[in-house]
Structure formats: C-alpha cells, structure tokens
C-alpha cells in the first residue's frame, strides 16, 4: 500500500479534548464532546457515524472554523504547530484554502453558478499570492487531467450547470488541491452521486490524494466507501468517540457494540415471501407500452411491467433513467403519450384528477425527501388525519383513535408525537410519518420513491424493516424505486433495471442479480462498494483490463 505511516515527524493536525456546542431553542447543546484526533502528513482518516454525530462539525473544526451559531468551548486544535483555537482571523485566513482545504457534500451548491469553473479555481492561488492567474489556469488544466475529467483543456471554461454532478465533484476536488494544501477535508463528497459515478470520483480522489501525499479527513456515513479511502477509521456517536482503529482491523473485528451494529446493517434480508403460483391471477398493476415525454423531450419509451399482488417490485437505475417518471405516470401526475395502465384488471384514467376517489385511495406514494413531503405548518395530527377524513370520512373521536393506532404502527409514541410539527422530528421519524400518511388511506399499492436514500444506514434499515413488517401484516404491494442495490437485495421479489427511459432487464430478483447479466446491470452491480478495503483496487484493475485503459 502507498500508505506506509513511517513519517515520524510531529503530527500535522492534533486535536485534543475538543468540545463544540451549538445554540438552538435558546440553549447551548454540546455537538462534539471531548474528541481527540491526530493526523500525520499524508494520512487519511475516515470519520463515520449517523447524522447528528458531529462528523461535519469536527471536520470544520480542523480548519479552526465553526458554523454560525456554534462555538468551541474547550480543547486545542494544533495545525503544524500552530494553535487554531483563538487564533487571529488573519492567521486563519492565510491557512484556509492555502494549507487546509474543504470539499463540500453538494458541489452543485458549493460552486458559484455565475462564474466559470476555472475562475473559481484560480481564486485561491491568486488570492494567496502563490501564482499568477495564467499559471493558475495552466495548473488547473493539469489537475483536471489528473482528476480524469473529460476535455481537461476545455471543461474549466464551462459554468457549473454545464457539467454533470460527478464531474463537478471532481472539479471541486481539483479546486481544493489548487494551493497544494497539506490537509483536505472531504465532507461526504460522493453521497449525492449514483453508484456508477461514485466509483469514478472515489478513484480520482484517492489517486490525487496519494500522488500529492496530502493528508485528508474523509467524512461519510457509508462504511464501504470509507473502507476504500481511509487508513484509519474513527467512529462517532452523538458527538463522542466510540472507537478508532486501522481500517483493516476495524473492518475485521469492530470492538464496540455500536460499531458492530453499523456493520450489521447491510445484512438485513427479509424472510422470503411464499411464491404465489396462481397462473391466471390478474396482476395488481400492469403497464402496457407506456411512453411519456416532458414537453418534447422523451423520458420513457415503451415501458411494460407488471406488479403482482402482495409482492415487491424494485425499479433500479441511475438518476435520469426514468424511474421516478414511471412512478409519476402511474400516479397520474404525468399523462403518458402512448400506452395504457391497468389497475386491478381495470384501465386506469391517465390523469389523477379524473380518477374516482376510491381509486386514488388505493394507490399511495411515499417520497424521497421527507422534508419536502410534509407541509412544515401542519402538525402530525393533521398530516395523518387528513387522509382519514378525506377518504374514509372519519371525524372527531374515531379519527383521533385511528391516528393514534397509526402512530403506534409506525413505532412513534402517540402522546409524544401527535402535536409536533415536522421540524421537531428527525429525518427517519419524518419518513415514518409519511408512511403513516400513506397507510391512513388503507391502500393496496404503495410506490416508495427512494424512501431511504436521504437517511443514514441505521435509520434506513429501520424504515425497511417497518415497510417489510407492514407488508406482511396488511398484504401490501410495493413498487420500490431505488438506486441502492443493497436495498434491492434486502426487500425485492422482482427487479426491473432501467436505463435512459427503457427497461433493460427484468425478472425475479435472483435471476436479475445472478449472472449472466445485461451489460448495464453488470456495471451497476459491480459499482456498489463492498466492505473490503481492496475492493476499489480490484474493481479498477478489472475495468482497466476490460476497457483497455
């Protein structure tokens, strides 16, 4: 391995007894409690934990920075011998961007949309007086090439919206490298990307960090990713350190229970559903030759799929493959230009406003982002109560009782949660409320549109278990849209693989996920990171061999 760790000089970064607190509800809460972190030159340490564990706060503190509304209470942060806590602003300004750089989770939000990529690249080196603008531009092109961006000479002259998400994230990393810093903080740089894109970004980041012997703090909640990137892993829970160990040691034998529970998440497999062998059974939902377009842009062509009663159909594919559009067509939010949809043997009116109320009740959808799926001004009581009132005509006492039953079903204590606003819930709790809202209509069929992708793994697993239990208890039929193949493995009966608005492969899960694969399915499957630290190397070697690169 490239990381020898033989560098015995003084550590590059030394954080001792750090406590950071943030202010909310007129009180100070501790976000990071008494954490130590030591980083030598050229070393990569991974920080993992669920949201709210203080990963990002700790990462930012390594730059001597805290978010607005936060403060460093105690502890010391020494960077290359220089104390950053309480250091004058001028000292920090000279370090930031020049010797310590930061790569944010969403490159799309971190770039200024009004400037070309290369202008933003040059800002750092020119500001810090390292090089002239011309030299910085030449340097940018070199780094773009190292990051394996297409058209390195040209791409810098585009605006952020003109390049893809994965390219933007690589341009962001190149920008962080512009002053050849000693330390880069990566804050979930691939979380927002598809698996097929993620692998390229991971490979590029790792190569550039190694080649320049840059130390890095790599923040993520994806264990398989951190296994590829980090020399050492530190696990955080509610602002405190759980344990720290070398990557291989940690993966082979985690010591603490919490770490073990993180590791075990990926093992969730639901009990296989008995295969109904009814030959003449009418499928609950069937799409026949459905095509759809946004304006003149075709987004779906010739989709044929069937969903059988009581089963789970998983629809996989990368973003832009038409998964969510299929869901919108089924729900009647987008009228197809060709094809028909049958629900329970009856043709379904294409627009949702033309569907009778009974039909609207029987089909429900759960959205990807619980934050935008719940009206921030409605209390939980109203969120769940409305479909009860609207579809089933429940009022007063009966409605109240049913709301409480539903809250019990989604494992949220009625007395504590019924009067809360969505802002007073965590991401997982919000998603549970969305599930309860769908259940309130007493549907037969639920579309789950990436319901776990905005959540941490532990929380996501809880949601999957809940959905599985509800399916078994109530005989629900699911269509599960996801780009996460681990989710498919754990819950699907049948799988549909989509690419560019078409179905490329479909069938029972075991057939689709077992070889031989369609080429695209193969690519998707091979891009899912595994917990093995050598996975990325093997994958790149295999691809390099087959693609002749």
């Amino acid at each position: 391995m490239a990381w020898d760790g033989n560098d015995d000089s003084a550590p590059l970064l030394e954080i001792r007894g750090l406590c950071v607190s943030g202010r909310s509800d007129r009180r100070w809460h501790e976000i990071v409690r008494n954490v130590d972190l030591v980083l030598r030159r050229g070393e990569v340490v991974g920080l993992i934990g669920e949201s709210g564990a203080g990963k990002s706060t700790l990462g930012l503190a390594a730059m001597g920075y805290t978010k607005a509304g936060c403060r460093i209470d105690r502890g010391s942060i020494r960077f290359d011998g220089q104390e950053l806590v309480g250091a004058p602003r001028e000292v920090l300004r000279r370090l930031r961007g020049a010797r310590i750089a930061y790569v944010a989770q969403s490159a799309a939000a971190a770039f200024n949309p009004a400037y070309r990529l290369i202008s933003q690249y040059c800002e750092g080196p020119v500001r810090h007086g390292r090089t002239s603008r011309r030299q910085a531009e030449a340097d940018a092109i070199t780094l773009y090439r190292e990051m394996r961006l297409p058209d390195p000479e040209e791409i810098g002259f585009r605006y952020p919206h003109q390049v893809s998400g994965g390219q933007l994230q690589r341009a962001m990393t190149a920008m962080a490298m512009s002053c050849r810093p000693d330390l880069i903080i990566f804050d979930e740089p691939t979380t927002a990307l598809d698996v097929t894109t993620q692998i390229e970004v991971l490979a590029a980041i790792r190569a550039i960090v190694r080649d320049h012997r840059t130390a890095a703090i790599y923040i993520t909640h994806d264990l398989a990713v951190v296994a590829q990137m980090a020399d050492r892993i530190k696990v955080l829970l509610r602002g405190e350190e759980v344990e720290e160990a070398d990557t291989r040691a940690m993966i082979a034998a985690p010591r603490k229970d919490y770490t073990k529970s993180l590791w075990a998440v990926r093992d969730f497999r639901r009990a296989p559903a008995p295969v109904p062998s009814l030959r003449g059974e009418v499928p609950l939902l069937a799409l026949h030759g459905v095509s759809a377009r946004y304006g003149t842009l075709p987004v779906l062509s010739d989709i044929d799929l069937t969903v059988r009663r009581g089963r789970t159909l998983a629809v996989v594919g990368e973003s832009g493959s038409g998964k969510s559009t299929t869901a919108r067509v089924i729900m009647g939010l987008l009228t197809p230009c060709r094809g028909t949809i049958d629900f329970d043997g009856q043709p379904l009116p294409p627009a949702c406003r033309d569907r009778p109320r009974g039909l609207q009740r029987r089909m429900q959808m759960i959205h990807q982002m619980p934050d935008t799926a719940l009206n921030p001004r409605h209390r939980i009581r109203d969120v769940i109560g409305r479909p009860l009132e609207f579809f089933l005509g429940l009022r007063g006492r009966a409605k109240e009782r049913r709301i409480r039953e539903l809250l019990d079903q989604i494992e949220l204590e009625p007395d504590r949660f019924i009067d809360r606003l969505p802002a007073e819930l965590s991401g997982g709790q919000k998603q549970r409320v969305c599930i309860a809202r769908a259940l309130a209509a007493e549907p037969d069929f639920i579309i789950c549109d990436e319901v776990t992708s905005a959540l941490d793994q532990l929380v996501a697993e809880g949601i999957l278990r809940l959905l599985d239990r509800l399916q078994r208890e109530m005989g629900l039929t699911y269509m599960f849209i996801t780009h996460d193949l681990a989710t498919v493995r754990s819950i699907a009966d049948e799988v549909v693989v989509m690419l560019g608005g078409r179905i490329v492969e479909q069938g029972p899960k075991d057939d689709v996920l077992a070889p031989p694969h369609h080429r695209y399915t193969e690519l998707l499957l091979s891009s899912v990171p595994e917990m093995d630290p050598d996975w990325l190397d093997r994958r790149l070697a295999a691809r390099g061999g087959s693609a002749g690169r």
Partner: protein
Amino acid sequence: MTGWLARLREAPVSAWIGILLILAYAAVAIFAPLLAPFPETAIVGPQYHPWAAPHLLGTDALGRDVLSRLVWGARNTVGIALVTTMLAFLIGTIMGFLAATVGGRVDAVSSRAVDVLMAIPSLIFALLILTITGTSILALILVIAVLDSTRVFRLSRAVAQGIIPLDYIEVARMRGESLFWIIRREILPNAAAPLIAEFGLRFCFVFLFIAALSFLGLGLQPPTADWGSMVRESAKLIAFANFASWQTATFGLAPLLPAGAVALLTVAVNLVVDWILTVASGLKE
C-alpha cells in the same frame, strides 16, 4: 393562537413600542367622539389661534380646532387605509395563488392584465379614474385597492410558485384535494410570512397614497378631516410663521402635526411587522 400569545411575552422592546403605538392609534380612532374636545367640522374659534387653552393645538384657517381634527382624521385616514389594504390583499392573493396553482391560460391572462395596470404610473392612473368617477370614498377605496392588488398579485404568485413544486403539494394533488383546499391549507400557511411583511409595507404606502391624493385635492373631500388634506391646507403656514417666540412659532408647526402622525404610525407598523416576520420565518436572533 396560544403560540402567538406566548411569543408576545418574549417580543423585543421595539415590537412592544410598535404594538403600543398601534393600540394608541386604534384607541384614538375608535373613541374619536369621546376624545375630541370639539366637533370635526364646526368653526369653534378665531382663525389661527395659537397653542393655548381651550385650543391646545391651535385652530386652522377657518377656526376649526386642530386637535379635534387630528383625532377625527385618525379615524378617517387610518380606517380607509386599512380597508383599502385588506381589499387589495384579498384581490391580490386570491388572484396570485390561482394564477400560480392553475397556471396555463389563467396565469397568462391575469399576469398580462397586471403588467398593463403596472405599466401606468399609479398616481396618474388614480387621478385619471377619480376624475372620471368623482371622489366618493367608495371610489377611492376601490381604485387604490385594485391598483395596489397588482403588487400583491406579483408577490403572492411568486411565493406560491416556490411552494407548488414541493412534494407535499403533489401529495395533496394525488389525494384529489380541491383547488380551494390546496390554496387555503397547503399554500397559504407557508406563504403567510412574506405576505404579512408586505401587508405592513403596503398599508403604509396606501396610507401615504391617500394622503397624497388628499393633498392634490382628489382624496377625502373637505370638510372631512384627514391628515393628508390637513398637511395641504396648512403647508403654506411654514413660510408665514414667525419663529421669534414660541407662541408665534406654534403657528408654523401646524403642518408637521398630521405629517408626524403619518410618519409615527408607519414606523410603528413596520416595527411590528419586522418582529412578526422574525417569528414566522423561524429566524434565530
């Protein structure tokens, strides 16, 4: 509602000043007949009486009591401005939300109509219409309300357009909720904060607009007391006042009294609006 009462206790001093001032104005407007020492339009003394009992703020060119006219003016000016602003908001938000929610042709037609109305300078347009219709209070309210609703329309349409793509609107649509329900329960609560802020601002503009129209002679007609026309009637006194002694100086201060009343209410309304906005948008201190 209980939430708002609890927050009222934590309101900053500036908000309290604003609330107290508005309550004082409201009390004056409501209890005008009890508070005013003299009738609104009657000639009760000599012309240009200095500030001394029984006419504490003097008398005007016709010998009417200035204090009484200020008190009655609160009722007329504030009352009409309030009714006009509420009407403007009723028209503007309903049309704006409809345009954003329904979209398509409804949006195109109403937006172009608003563009046309906004293309004409509103003061000139109001003068034109009021010259045609005559200067009744009803005409005044309707004309200003329609003109001001165009601004409200633009704001509410833009705010609603930001809310409509969110998933919870989609959920309501998939449930088959009516247009009215979606507007009232899903959009309105989330659009309230910017609309309330706009209400405060709009109220002040309407208020000044009526004062300006009165000043030009097309607003409230004499002998009705209102602050705008009071400023107009006494504006020229500044030039004639003798500032050598306090007694004679008060005479020149006459136009500043109604102008000050307008200014103070404007400030008070905005202090309260600032606070409501902070609370409603959940901004931290």
